């Protein structure tokens, strides 16, 4: 495989090649109807929860702001459908906790038309004005990072960004939502890239797309300006190519040093869905109220790429796509880094790029297989994109030598891509050990 990569061109070292399962790739984006009730949690992002702007009983129209950003590292939320505010109360969320949420009873005849907008001429805005325009859309890192996009766009002073890395890799198996956006809304994406370049002082932009998506590359290429300021590049299909540091390495050859941010090597990474959202919403002055989500898995009768109103209860969506089985596992995100969901009452929020639903009996063999002690085959070392030694880290974790893991074996550099656990023939839950170690260390530090 390494030889193959040599011929394909330079990319990051190591990584894994799980089966891609992009079964939904050629299914066009379809709208999901409104659920009778939408649940909009005030915190769907990194930063402070938004502040409600509405009262119980108030009528809202689709697109209207219902919660305002609370400070700079925060975003507003908008009504995904027209209806009445039924309650503002605690509601179960994806991570199992209950969180303050605005609950909208949707009018039966709520229109798909967005009834609220504040269009602005973006060319008239200065950098600060643009950043606020980004914030007003309520958009966050849609690849799953959910960091407020406007805050990420305000890079520290004296930093020179020379490369805008646009992440169209979608390296997680099963997920195809970014692919559909690139194929169907390449114009929005290019518009978003233009806005981001304007904000960052006009760096070159490189859109990195894994080479298993030639149609996306072609769709984007046809819209690019002639001056070469925006390029699209097919990069080797390899997990985790879509991790920011990995894609920077592939496209620019630079490695982000440990404990550094990507802007310190002159690169700024943003996911295609986020930029396409900016490119679509900002000129129209609309809020971010729906997103493309791949719904797929062995328990799903009608898989597809759905345009899902935010706040849709998971249960409604599963019913719609025909996910019926005695026992299911529901994952928000991809199969490698996604999170299993405890409650079907959880609403779908801004950071969800995919929803995987597996029947219990189809679940992978990790749970059923015997776990051996490490046989030191070295597969994990050959897979770790960060150049760590998961084998030794795992043995230290079993002995609870967490400090040694952090100090001598760079546990902090692990971003939990799961490659080591995926390949481990001894079936050792390595990344799970690392999560525990990190959380124990965080606990000790605070």
């Amino acid at each position, binding site marked *: 495989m390494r030889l193959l990569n040599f011929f394909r061109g330079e990319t990051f070292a190591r990584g894994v090649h799980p089966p891609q399962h992009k079964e939904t790739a050629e299914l066009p984006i379809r709208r999901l109807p409104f659920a009778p009730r939408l649940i909009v949690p005030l915190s769907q992002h990194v930063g402070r929860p938004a502040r409600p702007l509405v009262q119980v009983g108030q009528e809202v129209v689709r697109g209207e702001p219902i919660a305002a950003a609370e400070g700079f590292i925060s975003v507003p939320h908008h009504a995904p459908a027209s209806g009445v505010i039924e309650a503002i109360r605690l509601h179960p969320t994806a991570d199992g906790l209950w969180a303050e949420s605005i609950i909208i009873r949707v009018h039966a005849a709520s229109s798909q038309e967005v009834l609220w907008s504040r269009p602005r001429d973006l060319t008239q805005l200065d950098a600060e004005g643009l950043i606020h325009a980004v914030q007003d859309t309520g958009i966050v890192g849609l690849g799953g990072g959910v960091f407020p996009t406007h805050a990420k766009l305000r890079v520290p002073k004296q930093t020179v960004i020379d490369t805008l890395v646009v992440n169209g890799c979608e390296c997680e198996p099963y997920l195809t939502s970014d692919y559909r956006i690139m194929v169907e809304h390449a114009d929005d994406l290019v518009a978003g890239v233009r806005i981001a370049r304007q904000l960052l002082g006009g760096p070159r932009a490189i859109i990195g797309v894994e080479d298993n998506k030639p149609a996306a590359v072609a769709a984007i290429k046809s819209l690019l300006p002639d001056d070469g300021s925006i390029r699209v590049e097919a990069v080797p299909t390899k997990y985790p190519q879509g991790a920011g540091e990995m894609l920077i390495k592939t496209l620019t*050859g630079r490695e982000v040093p440990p404990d550094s941010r990507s802007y310190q090597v002159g690169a700024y990474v943003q996911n295609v869905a986020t930029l396409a959202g900016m490119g679509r919403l900002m000129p129209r002055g609309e809020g971010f109220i729906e997103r493309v989500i791949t719904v797929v898995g062995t328990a799903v009768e009608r898989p597809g790429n759905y345009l899902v109103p935010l706040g849709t209860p998971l249960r409604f969506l599963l019913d719609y796509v025909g996910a019926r089985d005695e026992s299911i596992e529901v994952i928000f995100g991809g199969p490698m880094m996604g999170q299993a969901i405890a409650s079907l009452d959880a609403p779908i929020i801004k950071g969800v790029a995919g929803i995987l639903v597996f029947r219990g009996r189809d679940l992978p063999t990790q749970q059923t297989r015997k776990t051996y002690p490490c046989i030191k085959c070295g597969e994990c070392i050959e897979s770790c994109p960060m150049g760590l030694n998961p084998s030794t880290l795992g043995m230290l974790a079993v002995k609870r030598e967490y400090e040694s893991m952090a100090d001598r074996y760079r546990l902090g550099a692990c971003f939990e891509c799961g490659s080591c656990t995926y390949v481990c023939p001894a079936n050792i839950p390595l990344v799970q050990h690392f999560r525990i170690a990190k959380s124990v260390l965080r606990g000790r530090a605070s």
Partner: protein
Amino acid sequence: MSAPSVELRSGPHIKGTRSVEQIMRHVVYSLLPICAFFIYQYGLSALASLIAVTAACLATERFFVGLGGQSGSLRDYSAVITGLLLALTLPPGFPMWMGAVAGFSAIALGKAIFGGIGHNIFNPALVGRAFVQAAFPTAIATYTPSFLSDRFVSFIPSTLAMPFMTPVDAAVWLHAEHLDALAGATPLARWKFEGVTAGAWDLLTSLSGHMAVGPAPGLILLCGIYLGVRRFLDWRIPIAIIGSACLTASGLYAWNPDHFPNPLFMLLSGGLVLGALYMATDMVTSPVTPRGMWLYGGVIGLLTVGIRYYGGLPEGVMYAILIGNAATPLIERITQPTAFGTVVKRKEKAS
């Protein structure tokens, strides 16, 4: 719709197909042609030795698994590998009961006392061999010629020696077979004690004459390449061992061709190829770090040639690998992988 029950797991939610059992099973598959060739060379005695040693390994493994506290079981095939490899390193006419002792000590002393697969420090097969080398120094040095005409109808007499009895003197039997007693010496022993070296092609194929050798290095290489291509062994280790042995032997040969043998003789005689591909590559007892594998292989190659030239015994592979095993934790410590972002990139990709 009735409420489905929701299962909660911590990601990754998918899992690669490779397993310990699968790795071990493929090593066993790749050993089968080598065992078949061994039987083709030495007939019934080789078959009896393979069966006796492997059965002893499996019985010992079963016993310790039954006692509890072992990490593996018979189902992981690792005891089969130990048995087959151990038998291949023993002389074909090695008494069966001594073979059983070797198998027992391999598993008991080499693996079980550490807690089972994954916990052992030394290659179990080599521990077994080291044990019988100390316990039965004469028997383990008694080789017999290959391709005897009656090998499929009668045993080498020593094979059937009664437990705790002295085996028949091989020289007497060889005389009865109308063979020179010296025919029983291995090529390495003949070089060491008589200064006679065998030809490289004869060694590679092991087919000509009645050479007292193990399975053909050529065949072992082919089987090892299969494992390497399927990535069931790490190719770095055999390349490092053979490369380092080759460099050392070539250097000495260039320095004094009259005193030191042809490097090809060094590479193809004795257990070097089997050791490099199947013994030193034992995952548990070799370094896990890629750079460590190079260092480990380099040390083993150097030691092998060193022991052969300067040691009292003609063969040094076993001790070289055992020393390599012992050095593995140290090697790992000084060869940790380079973390991402810690090396300043020399070239910038042109834009």
